[in-house]
């Protein structure tokens, strides 16, 4: 009897204690705070060009301030003070959503591996936010008159992390490895426009004709076919003084790639605890100046846990999924920064299917989707509707059809095209992107409204790729990132020869005019003409809709106010240096 009562009393006491503890922490004090959001947006401006007013789009950075009543949680007395957190103000702690697979650029292009390599390595040039090339390892470059030869002058003060200067030999070795058939670099396809690259890869030559070392710090690349947007030279350079004597067969297992401690970027690789964190240290002899933040830790975790860590001050900056933006906005000590997305989510249409070959059907699909509302619902204001492959200002003509939501028009077009409403379309989409997954049922119901039956099928990404390449789909939801120049993307996706397995034209789209324009654009070196050609291409794509463009996702970063100067670029997705283009100048206060 006694022991039973005692147990009961003990339980009740415990429950009461816990309730009291929770209750005492849950009463917050309301406080006013000013929430600032740095937003980059595109605005339309009327400008007089050669006497005629034209509407152009410009990108502006706005700082939006609003006063918000926020609940500041009372400081809870630390019940357990175990290990003091070291130097909060001196380490930048960044959250990453997934582990980097490998640090070997020949083997992976995965985003999280790229993120780490962004800090540790450098390339000849990099892009600014408008997609234009700016000097990085190269302090300047000359382009020959016919545009086929690029001569780069490597910075005098560019050194590897062990003090050895970066020279042309490093570039030569790296390119040879990319082309070597024994290394089988996964990035080989991005380097094929260098003269002699294919011959070297086929074993017909001992060296690469289009790569010429002029002197220690000067290197020249000659293009196979002269293209305007030549980018093949911009590969990650590896140290020749460490790797030159390693045979290609031993390359992959070489300890250097498990721990790339000798790089040439702003930060040195210190260590990687698998699935936990990557540790980086500032390289004080970096050619753009010693980074002010001395240590960076890239912490790997699931989205929810990383946000919790940000709240608990165990993290300084992390990407916020759209659904959490509202909640995070109201946290004390945390600010938001938004970078407009650089790619688009797109519905690819399988043009091999006869019932999808009439362009009126595809236009009907575009009219049937209330994309503005869907983007608003899915991204809570963090999405921008698109009508073109990317959102680079200069390539988008001002007279594109915006396909505003018009279900009546959609029905009209379907009737004209003789749409058989018993046809069921299979819409396939991959896992891995929550808002995209949520958009599929929305698309299904919107299309049903106008008389198109849609069946949904979700798969994991790799499975989807296989099937889509084999043509087993009607509609496929996929996203593309885009960089500075549209040529690469257009060539891979819209050129008629780029059908699988030679490219990503999974729609099997064939338009001779577009093919011609794409080829012409590559060799047009006059800036104005170049822009006009792409605008023409975009107009055709906008009319024929081999794909239906949906929207681009903004990226919202939540960061602790102690970070000074945080201004993410639009390519910052996986928390690499893209998220911190000015990493060298960032500081931490307190």
């Amino acid at each position, binding site marked *: 009897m006694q022991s*039973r009562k005692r147990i*009961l009393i003990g339980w009740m006491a415990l429950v009461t204690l816990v309730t009291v503890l*929770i209750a005492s*922490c*849950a009463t917050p004090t309301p406080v006013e705070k000013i929430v600032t959001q740095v937003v980059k947006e595109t605005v339309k401006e009327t400008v007089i060009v050669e006497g005629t007013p034209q509407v152009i789009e410009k990108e502006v950075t706005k700082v939006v301030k609003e006063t918000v009543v926020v609940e500041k949680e009372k400081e*809870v007395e630390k*019940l*357990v003070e*175990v*290990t003091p*957190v*070291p130097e909060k103000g001196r*380490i930048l*702690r960044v959250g990453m959503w997934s582990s980097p*697979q*490998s*640090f*070997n650029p020949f*083997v*992976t*292009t*995965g*985003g999280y591996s790229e993120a780490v390599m962004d800090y540790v390595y450098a390339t000849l040039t990099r892009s600014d936010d408008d997609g234009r090339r700016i000097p990085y390892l190269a302090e300047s470059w000359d382009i020959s008159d016919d545009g086929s030869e690029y001569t780069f002058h490597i910075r005098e003060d560019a050194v590897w992390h062990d003090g050895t200067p970066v020279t042309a030999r490093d570039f030569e070795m790296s390119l040879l490895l990319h082309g070597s058939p024994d*290394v*089988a*670099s*996964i990035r*080989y*396809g*991005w380097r094929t426009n260098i003269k002699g690259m294919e011959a070297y890869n086929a074993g017909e030559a001992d060296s690469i004709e289009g790569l010429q070392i002029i002197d220690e710090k000067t290197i020249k690349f000659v293009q196979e076919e002269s293209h305007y947007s030549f980018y093949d030279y911009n590969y990650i350079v590896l140290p020749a003084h460490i790797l030159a004597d390693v045979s290609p067969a031993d390359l992959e297992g070489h300890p250097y*790639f*498990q721990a790339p401690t000798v790089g040439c970027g702003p930060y040195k690789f210190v260590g990687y*605890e698998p*699935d*936990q*964190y990557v540790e980086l240290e500032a390289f004080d002899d970096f050619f753009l100046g010693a980074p002010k933040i001395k240590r960076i*830790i890239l*912490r790997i975790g*699931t989205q*929810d*846990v990383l946000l*919790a*860590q940000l709240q*608990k001050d*165990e993290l300084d900056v992390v990407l916020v999924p759209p659904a959490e933006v509202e909640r995070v906005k109201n946290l004390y000590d945390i600010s938001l920064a938004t970078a407009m997305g650089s*790619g688009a989510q797109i519905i690819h249409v399988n043009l091999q299917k006869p019932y999808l070959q009439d362009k009126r059907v595809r236009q009907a699909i575009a009219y049937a989707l209330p994309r503005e509302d869907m983007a608003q619902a899915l991204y809570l204001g963090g999405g921008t509707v698109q009508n073109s492959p990317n959102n680079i200002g200069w390539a988008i003509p001002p007279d594109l059809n915006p396909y505003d939501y018009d279900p009546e028009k959609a029905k009209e077009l379907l009737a004209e095209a003789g749409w058989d409403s018993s046809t069921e379309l299979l819409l396939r989409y991959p896992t*891995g992107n929550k808002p995209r997954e949520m958009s599929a049922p929305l698309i299904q119901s919107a299309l049903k409204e106008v008389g198109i039956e849609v069946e949904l099928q979700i798969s*994991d*990404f*790799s*499975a989807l*790729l*296989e099937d889509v390449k084999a043509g087993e789909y009607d509609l496929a939801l996929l*996203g*593309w*990132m885009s960089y500075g120049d549209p040529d690469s993307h257009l060539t*891979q*996706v819209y050129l008629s020869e780029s059908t699988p*397995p030679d*490219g990503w034209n999974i729609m099997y789209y064939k338009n001779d005019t577009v093919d011609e324009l794409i080829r012409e654009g590559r060799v047009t070196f006059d800036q104005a003409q170049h822009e006009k050609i792409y605008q023409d291409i975009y107009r055709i794509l906008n009319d024929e809709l081999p794909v239906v463009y949906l929207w681009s996702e903004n990226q919202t970063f939540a960061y602790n106010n102690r970070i000074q100067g945080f201004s993410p670029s639009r390519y910052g997705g996986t928390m690499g240096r893209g998220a911190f283009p000015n990493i060298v100048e960032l500081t931490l206060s307190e």
Partner: protein
Amino acid sequence: MHRYILQRVLTAIPILFGVTFITFLIINAAPGDPVDMMISPDNPLPPEGMRARREALGLNKPLLVRYVLWLRELFQGNLGYSLVNHEPVLARIGRRLLPTVQLMGTSFLLGMITGIPLGILSAIRQYSPLDHLTTVLAFLGISSPSFFVGLGAIYVLSLKLDLFPTAGMQTLGASFSLIDCLHHLILPALILSVGTTASLMRYTRSSMLEVIAQDYITTAQGKGLTGRQVVLRHALRNALLPVITILGLSLPGVFGGAMITEQIFQWPGIGMLSIHAVTARDYPVLMGLNLFSAILVFVGNLLADIGYAIADPRITYK
């Protein structure tokens, strides 16, 4: 007994072959291949590089050839290299063993320490309020998804009450400290132990009830032994027999890790490795993991059977 063990080992070998072969077939039947997973989904890669990679990784050879190659390497003691980062599979798995055992072992111990006594108490005081309470808690424990409980615990205990760190094995950037590691271990081990506690408690309870109903217990009570003597000296020993079996069968679990909990708490164990290997279609690592798992199941079963024979003199193996 020795002959029995030898017999078991000999029969295990063809079974292990079968398991690895079927595993190989299944993971290759999954759509997509490792090279598809090496590229970033949003950034198109010209296919020439991918073709070359596939060739280099030997993925174009026929299925049976690849299996036989794997077997040949296995007999030389080489489990192969991970397709993702070219680390030897043995090293890759081996590195994860210690954290896994730390986590699972602790949670298991916690489960045993809490579950078994609670089960005994429940059985002795059958139908009492304590019994009802523990039964309800047990069902809650078994049915709560670890994901939910884990995130909830992080939110309450870590975020609101600031009692524990959120995730990871140690504090970022700090130097190694045993207390710090233990501090990080408590929460995930606790969450994991919920399921073990609940099920162990139920097993112990029913086993105990069965034993208490036996005649010899009534005799012992009739003899005048105190309740405690009856329980501890007579009933418990017999009631724990089935529990030994369960403990033996849980051995693969201790080394197998818990995928979901490890994911939430960022604990670098075998569970996380499995998920990564599956997503990346890392065939050598998957084969290594499965072989490891199969061997553990075999060993666990064998230990359970031997343990049973030792504990229960009525059982002998010839």
